[in-house]
């Protein structure tokens, strides 16, 4: 996990290590570089960079659902957004979803990492069980969710009744409960990821720091608050970015579990962009405009986090 530790420790990944000064009489250009780097640059250009530019273009167009012909619309698609109740709801839901799932999955992940990093018999087994949901596809997770949360035959409600509840919870017919069901399923698959990163980070903490803190009379909580939390700071920074980006783009699980319903109480930007562009209306210009919003949100968030982290390091 040394790479992970380096990454989590926030080492600059871009500056090549030990770059030697250019030596005289040597060409700056190795022709074989074209062979090695060429294919990946071409693929990224064709399928990532050009499409990204294309999204900005199509977001200003009316795309005919049948022929695919485009006619310029200016910023009309973005104006439509403001009056589109489902879009506004999806935006708010995405924000709410992010604000709930990111801190919760990180706090639980850190708590589990501390637990799994301590003396604990069978540690490997418990860790494996926590990681396992990470490899399961969003569709499978969503489908398992539909079964667990089914109001009539679902295991969760049967369990609640067996434990003495007077009736089950309306997971599928009540908007707030549907939202909670989506959050719970997301925590199930995300906690393991935060735990992996925090574990890697905890294993780089020098043991004598705890010893020194203990000698100074710090209790368990104080040691956690004043030694562990600051030392896993870079991992926290990395996790905030990764988890927020994930939450902005969540799609598979919600698409299969609730499909945005009931009503549009669990609609998020990811599902709404897909439905608009590839659903019955096939309004690809508007779909691209929603794509622009998702991209800009991701970009702004990443830049803000990056800056905040840099200035924090400078202060410290």
């Amino acid at each position, binding site marked *: 996990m040394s790479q992970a530790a380096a990454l989590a420790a926030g080492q600059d990944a871009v500056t090549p290590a030990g770059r030697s000064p250019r030596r005289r009489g040597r060409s700056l250009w190795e022709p074989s570089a074209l062979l090695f780097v060429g294919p990946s640059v071409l693929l990224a250009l064709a399928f990532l960079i050009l499409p990204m530019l294309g999204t900005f273009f199509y977001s200003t167009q009316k795309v005919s659902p049948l022929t695919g012909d485009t006619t310029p619309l200016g910023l009309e698609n973005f104006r439509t957004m403001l009056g589109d109740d489902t879009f506004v709801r999806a935006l708010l839901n995405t924000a709410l979803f992010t604000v709930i799932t990111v801190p919760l999955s990180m706090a639980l992940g850190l708590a589990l990492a501390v637990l799994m*990093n301590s003396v604990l018999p069978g540690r490997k087994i418990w860790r494996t069980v926590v990681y396992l949901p990470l490899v399961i596809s969003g569709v499978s*997770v969503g*489908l398992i969710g539909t079964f667990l949360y089914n109001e009539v035959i679902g295991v969760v409600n049967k369990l609640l009744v067996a434990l003495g509840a007077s009736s089950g919870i309306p997971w599928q017919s009540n908007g707030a409960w549907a939202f909670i069901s989506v959050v719970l399923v997301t925590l199930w698959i995300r906690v393991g990821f935060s735990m992996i990163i925090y574990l890697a980070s905890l294993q780089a903490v020098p043991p004598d720091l705890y010893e020194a803190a203990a000698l100074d009379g710090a209790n368990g909580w104080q040691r956690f608050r004043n030694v562990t939390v600051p030392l896993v700071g870079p991992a926290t920074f990395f996790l905030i970015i990764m988890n927020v980006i994930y939450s902005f783009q969540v799609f598979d699980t919600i698409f299969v579990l609730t499909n945005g319903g009931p009503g549009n109480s669990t609609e998020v930007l990811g599902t709404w962009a897909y439905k608009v562009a590839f659903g019955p209306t096939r309004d690809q210009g508007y779909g691209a405009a929603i794509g622009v919003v998702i991209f800009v949100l991701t970009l702004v968030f990443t830049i803000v986090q990056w800056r905040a982290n840099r200035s924090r390091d400078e202060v410290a």
Partner: protein
Amino acid sequence: MAVTADQGAVRSRATSVSATRGPATRRTRTRVGLALRVVVAVVVSVVMAFPLWVMIVTALSGQSVFSTELDLLPTNITLDNFARVFTAWPIGQWFSNSVTVTALTTIISVIVSVMAGYGFAKLRFPAKTPLFLLLLSTMMIPTQAILVPQFRLVNALGLVGTFWAVIIPGAAATFGIFLARQFMIAIPTELIEAAKIDGAGPVRIFWSIVLPLSKPLLAVLTLLSLMYQWNDFLWPLIVLRDPSLYTLPIGLQFLQGQYQTDYGALMAMTLITVGPLIVLFLVFQRWFVQGFATSGIR
């Protein structure tokens, strides 16, 4: 994943505490703490494993899911649920589609990533750093943000309705380049220089020096790509329209619409979809975990 330092930490913490208290108190405190931790670990594991357990029990169970009783243990184990979906739908075909698409995408993307990683780590060419930063920044592009133009491009290339529509864009996964470059920077440049002096060409150097040293990298990249492609949903959903071309996640979503309440059949199909990856994960856990940790995937 060697965990030795932390055990030392806990032990020394226990010792320093014992200096001020009697040894008996210390032992009881450690015992209670340990028991508490085990209890928490067991509870967490039960909660985490619960959904998978329910899936497996339901898939293998002959019980009607409509019974109001709570059955958490498999009674009347049977393969009826599997038989039902297998006879009604081309599950074998979907499975082999998934294998084909996943295998081809993985092979192409690993080759391309490793080559580019080597180029960015060890070769000299103009605009290297800006180009690398540009590729790095594509990792931030959300899938939904490029769906429309990507679809139009693949459509214009005449690939919609073929596996290539999934495979080629799928191979443009830049996180692999990033991982490969990070790994290859650590390969000593002297080794490459020495081979050059001995007269080895660039391809020869890559093939007989760089690749053999990169086995751990290849393992991580392969597993991550396998997992990502096997589970990929949104893009195949858009470009694979013909049911005979469906991959397992698309087939699964399609069956959800057909069998709304036949959860025995649905859970059997889910088990077929997640089974291979779970087995792969249990066998290659170390590499998977390393991959998650370094790439930040999912």
